[in-house]
């Protein structure tokens, strides 16, 4: 990694401290009160929804035509197969929130993975916020929280399972994205995408090696490299845990561990706390419990996996992000709280982090393609086992079940089916070019399992939140704004060295980009140092939209942005005023660059994406619709995500509430 990238990583780290430092106190949040599960009304009809994140119509069509997905074929033939219109923008948290609430982002207030704080212009996570304990007692170096912290789900609007609950219709919602912490309900729900690891990150792996290596500690995730020494065939290191809310300054907790390497054999024993296990080279450990103590009577338990990548000549050990232990959750994972423990009793430890596959480890070459897939295969097998169990217990009402594999693997392996991608590699393509197809086949097997287990009274719905397309080139929105005079830096500032808008002259800046599709005006009365007067807003937005839609890539001659959506025109609902002002709908093959979303100004306006993260879904939603398959014919020719919600409610005879904007699908 270049020195500049290192520097950025440091700045990001500082930022992360700001955003995530509060998470430790939240670990002490009192457990949710025990909740009785929702009324068990026996419904004649049952509805099973399989949410397969990122399933793409183009690819699905191709594999269907090639006869590779017999159960999708069967379902399509029996009822409905349509493209499913995604959200604006078609990002997972936004799209699944559309489905959850049956409305558009103006009604649920999730507009992007990342929002911004209008007071500081800094990015903040859109899905949830952590608040530390309000009152603390300080005794020397000790800090005793006198109240629990709080984690808030920032999604607004009622979830469809809450509406079903009003009518006593039971529902089980397994790992649906945009539901962390799970909203209060008597239904059985388990949180999905958005659930952090035990440190409060979206996934932070640890990598122990005596080889020179750097990795990026990204916004909300990534990894850390620990330099270790092999002395006398022994390695001693520490696994970082959550911050300690009982100590002044909330220092990070650690667990010491030792690795004993055999002098000859490629095998090692790992020991920490009361754990001891042996790993061969290139072997995964399975889940291991780990406890981080704050004070002698207080601590939290997590679970992680070890992977002994290499013993010699270099020592390389990967430790997965520490997931919240479902058997003893330090943070809220489910409703009722006992649901998480019930699953842990049946299945042992399992992935609880929102996006379980460690894409950052593959991106940073800590895991290679084969190793990444081995890890994601564990995710798939866990999901299948739990699906089977949920189907066995599915007697009434609704079951929603989520799969992340297609989304995560398309993000990382699109480069190997796209010969024009900057990261295309002939050799890797020959070995891993079939991964996406194999993943679709695995989704077909999940559907097969469901079709075999449900009875005739069950309507099966398979849906995805968006499709996929290659991410070949990245657009630097903030660089464009800077070059076109909408964003101004203070004199003497070198644009390419800026991160998080350090150096921005807000008194002369009219627009800025934060997040993956969002553009904000520096609006007077809204932003801390707002410049644009309310009456100037509309003309400025139209001017920006028009100019952005004309941006062409000099390398390809293609338009970069197909549509710049004015949110005042495409959103409706109570929270439109919180929305970004413009949502960029990129053209196929394009996306926001890696650095622009966090307030940087790279030199190039449009740059190649050489990274393994090579497939994405930030285009105009019409380009990458999701898929909808159902065992019942649909009334709508061009359904949208929120129409599925309305369809579910009407199937159960529930009147659609006014805040749900979707139309009945069936």
């Amino acid at each position, binding site marked *: 990694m270049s020195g500049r990238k290192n520097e950025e990583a440091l700045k990001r780290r500082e930022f992360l401290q700001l955003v995530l430092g509060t998470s430790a106190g939240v670990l002490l949040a009192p457990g949710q009160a025990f909740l009785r599960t929702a009324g068990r009304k026996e419904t004649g009809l049952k509805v099973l929804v399989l949410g397969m994140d990122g399933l793409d119509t183009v690819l699905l069509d191709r594999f269907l035509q090639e006869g590779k997905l017999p159960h999708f074929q069967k379902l399509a033939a029996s009822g409905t197969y349509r493209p499913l219109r995604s959200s604006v923008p078609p990002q997972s948290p936004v799209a699944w929130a559309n489905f959850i609430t049956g409305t558009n982002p103006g009604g649920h207030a999730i507009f992007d993975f990342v929002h911004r704080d209008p007071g500081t212009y800094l990015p903040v996570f859109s899905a949830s916020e952590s608040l530390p304990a309000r009152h603390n007692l300080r005794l020397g170096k000790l800090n005793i929280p006198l109240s629990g912290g709080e984690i808030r789900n920032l999604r607004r609007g009622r979830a469809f399972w809450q509406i079903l609950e009003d009518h006593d219709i039971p529902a089980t919602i397994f790992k649906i994205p945009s539901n962390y912490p799970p909203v209060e309900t008597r239904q059985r729900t388990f949180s999905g995408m958005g659930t952090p690891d035990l440190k409060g990150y979206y996934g932070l792996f640890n990598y122990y090696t005596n080889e020179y290596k750097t990795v990026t500690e990204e916004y909300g995730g990534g990894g850390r490299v620990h330099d270790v020494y092999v002395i*006398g*065939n*022994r390695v001693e290191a520490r696994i970082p845990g959550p911050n300690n809310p009982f100590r002044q300054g909330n220092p990070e907790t650690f667990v010491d561990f030792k690795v*004993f*390497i*055999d*002098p000859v*054999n*490629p*095998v*090692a*024993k790992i020991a920490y706390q*009361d754990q*001891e*296990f*042996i*790993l*061969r080279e290139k072997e995964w450990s399975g889940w291991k419990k780990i406890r981080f103590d704050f004070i002698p009577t207080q601590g939290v338990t997590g679970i992680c996996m070890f992977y002994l990548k290499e013993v010699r000549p270099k020592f390389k050990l990967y430790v997965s992000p520490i997931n919240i232990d479902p058997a003893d959750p330090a943070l809220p994972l489910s409703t009722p709280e006992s649901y998480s*423990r019930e699953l842990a009793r049946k299945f042992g430890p399992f992935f609880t982090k929102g996006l379980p596959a460690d894409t950052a480890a593959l991106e940073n070459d800590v895991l290679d393609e084969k190793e990444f897939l081995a890890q994601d295969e564990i995710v798939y097998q866990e999901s299948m086992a739990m699906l089977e169990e949920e189907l066995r217990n599915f007697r009434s009402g609704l079951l929603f079940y989520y799969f992340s594999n297609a989304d995560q693997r398309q993000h990382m392996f699109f480069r190997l089916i796209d010969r024009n991608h900057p990261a295309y590699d002939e050799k890797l393509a020959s070995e891993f070019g079939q991964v996406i197809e194999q993943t679709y086949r695995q989704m077909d097997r999940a559907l097969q399992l469901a079709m075999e287990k449900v009875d005739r009274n069950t309507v099966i719905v398979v849906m995805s939140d968006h499709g996929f397309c290659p991410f070949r080139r990245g657009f630097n929105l903030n660089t464009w704004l800077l070059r076109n005079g909408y964003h101004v830096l203070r004199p003497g500032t070198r644009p390419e060295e800026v991160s998080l808008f350090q150096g921005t002259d807000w008194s002369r800046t009219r627009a800025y980009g934060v997040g993956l599709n969002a553009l904000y005006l520096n609006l007077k009365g809204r932003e801390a140092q707002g410049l644009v007067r309310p009456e100037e807003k509309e003309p400025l937005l139209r001017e920006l939209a028009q100019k952005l839609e004309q941006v062409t890539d000099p390398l390809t001659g293609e338009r970069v942005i197909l549509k710049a959506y004015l949110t005042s025109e495409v959103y409706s609902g109570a929270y439109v005023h919180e929305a970004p002002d413009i949502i960029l709908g990129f053209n196929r093959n394009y996306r926001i660059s890696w650095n622009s979303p966090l307030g940087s100004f790279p030199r190039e306006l449009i740059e190649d994406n050489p990274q393994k993260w090579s497939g994405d879904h930030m285009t105009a939603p019409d380009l990458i619709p999701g898929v909808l398959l159902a065992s019942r014919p649909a009334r709508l020719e061009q359904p949208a995500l929120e129409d599925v919600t309305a369809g579910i409610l009407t199937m159960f005879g529930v009147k659609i509430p006014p805040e749900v904007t979707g139309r009945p699908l069936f």
Partner: protein
Amino acid sequence: MVWWLNRAVGSLFNLIFLPFSSFNPWVAMLVVSLLTALLMLFIYKKTSNQEGIRLVKNRIKARLLEIRLYQTDLRTQLGSQKELLAANLQYLLYNLKPLLVMIVPIFLILAQLNLWFASRPPAPGETFLLKARFIKTVDLERLRLDLETPTGLVVETPPVRIIDEAEVAWRLKVTGPVDEPLVVQVNGERYQKIVPAGKSRLLRVSTVRVKRNLWQELLYPGEKPLPADSLLKQIELRFEPQRLHLLGIGFHWLVAYFLLSIILGLALKGLFRVEI
């Protein structure tokens, strides 16, 4: 000598637990706690000065009453406190003898209960660690080591030799029922280790076989000790710890045992007219 004692106590526990092997382990725990309570009451009654204890307890009560009655009289208060302290010390002294006597059977019982309640044998498909610990002077890299596994067990990894801890460890996997002991071969010498297995809810699980040594043998009474001249100090199977579950809470067996024995002992002391 110790081995024969261990065998005798072990046989007694086998006999006690035999009828309860298919029951919830709490039943066996309740039975053994009840027997312990009875034994301890018997020992206490026979080895303590019952009359002395009764008198000293009365003295304590009297002093407490005195403190309450004469709250405004500082001199009496101080005198009562002094007398109360003395009576308490006397009470502790009376308890010392029975406690010292009780330690012996309690130690033997705890070592036996550890075999029955501490660990869970792995089920087919599960793995565990086998650790062989040697005397410090052994050169592990030159040692001729081999592992003979019975049917139902496979060795999954090559040995990990940890020189400075004189330890060698393997990972084993249970593939089916295990009826024979495994054998660790050290320079041609064969040392057996029982691998407990079975489906019974209550199983005697010996995880450690130690070399001949008084304390070690008393602590790990499950198997005949290794020969005194062996290079091996102990053979250990790392099994998962076991908990006794009640109302969703997992209890360590030691906590359950002490709580139940104390509660039952206090409940029955009146019946057997034991002054505690």
